[in-house]
């Protein structure tokens, strides 16, 4: 497996397959773990790397696809409970307050969700 960033030749998914106001994890490079996640809110899709700014390379979900708090109003890191705004990824409360999640540039083309530009591996090694 190459560890260099690379362009993806397939979309992540169809936007209509994303449940509204829920998070879904993706593993675009087939690394064996989700290295990013998206949250759809209506027609908007927000995409973030699965890396909590609190700890180096800390994965955030508590279970597959579970990146949100109880009422799905915030992104929650299940490592230490940091809460982030879904729209801009800024941590509002918790151990990395003020820090921001790393955005993944995405584009919707023909109803499909694409990563824009090269995508770097995210798995610890």
């Amino acid at each position, binding site marked *: 497996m190459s560890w260099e960033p690379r362009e993806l030749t397939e979309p992540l998914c169809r936007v209509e397959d994303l449940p509204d106001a829920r998070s879904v994890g993706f593993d675009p490079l087939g690394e*064996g773990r989700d290295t990013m996640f998206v949250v759809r809110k209506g027609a908007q899709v927000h995409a973030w790397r699965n890396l909590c700014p*609190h700890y180096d390379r*800390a*994965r*955030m*979900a*508590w*279970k*597959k696809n*579970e990146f949100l*708090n*109880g*009422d799905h109003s915030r992104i*929650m*890191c*299940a*490592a*230490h*409970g*940091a*809460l982030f705004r879904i729209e801009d990824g800024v941590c509002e*409360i*918790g*151990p990395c*307050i003020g820090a921001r999640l790393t955005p993944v540039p995405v584009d919707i083309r023909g109803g499909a969700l694409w990563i824009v530009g090269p995508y770097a591996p995210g798995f*610890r090694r």
Partner: protein
Amino acid sequence: MRIIGPDELIFGVDNVDASRTFLTDYGLADVGDGTFEALDGTAVTIRARDDASLPPALETGSMLRRTVWGVEDQASLDAIEAELSKDREVVKANGQLLCKDDAGFEIGFQLTRRRALDLPAELINSPGAKPGRAMNEVGVDQDAEAKPRTLSHIVYFVPDMDAMANFYIDRLKFVVTDKFTNTGPFLRPQANNDHHVLFMIQTSPYMQGLEHLAFHMQGPTELMLAGSRMVQKGYESFWGPGRHKFGSNWFWYFNSPLGTHVEYDADMDHHDGDWIHREGPMGPEQAQVFLFEHVEKWAPGGPPPGKGGGKPA
């Protein structure tokens, strides 16, 4: 002061259903009223974040609301009350003493709820040593139960490590077993030989909270079995499996809907008053003797991928 260790951790969570499922899958027994017990009765209790019976939350968003310490006898409880009443309010309620520690964490003390366990250790065969298992007794059972035996330790994020450590050392007679320089000490109370029941990590005030909680498993095999089952259920492995240096305990940490890491540990060192603490820098080299990462099951055999699937040309 004969403090044994943490008896119960009480959380105010924002997703009760997810927390219940997580703790059950982790291996604790749902005994009702939001309490999830290990085999010896030590427990994690979850309530809705806005439950009026909970003590106030920290401002940091930590979901931990109280740590209840188990003590061996009434004399220890009386001694703790006398000591802590000198400089803070200590409330007596339902057999518990309730107050805050010097970092502002809500704490309690009670006659321990721990039931004595009489269970076998992991049994191994080792050349040159007396066999651990009887003849024809197999070591692996894929379907074996793997249940946490007892609440092992907790690790806090604290803004003033020295003040916090001194409270437990000077006032509650905990002993330092090892130290990470500028990070925090590992602490053992008087009535427990485990390398640590309490560890702390120096952080900024806005980070104050719980880094992780851990339960002891039977041994490394049971730890691997329980952790593998968590991964298979989709839970997020955070760190491990591996084996720590300080304490020698095997570890496997998972993320959780309680907003803290929840660890399985096994085979921790025991120490007494003769032990002289060590000190080392916190970092990957000192934090573990080795570290693994879970992968899907695999077995050797058959042709390599893309070589014709084994059919002759």
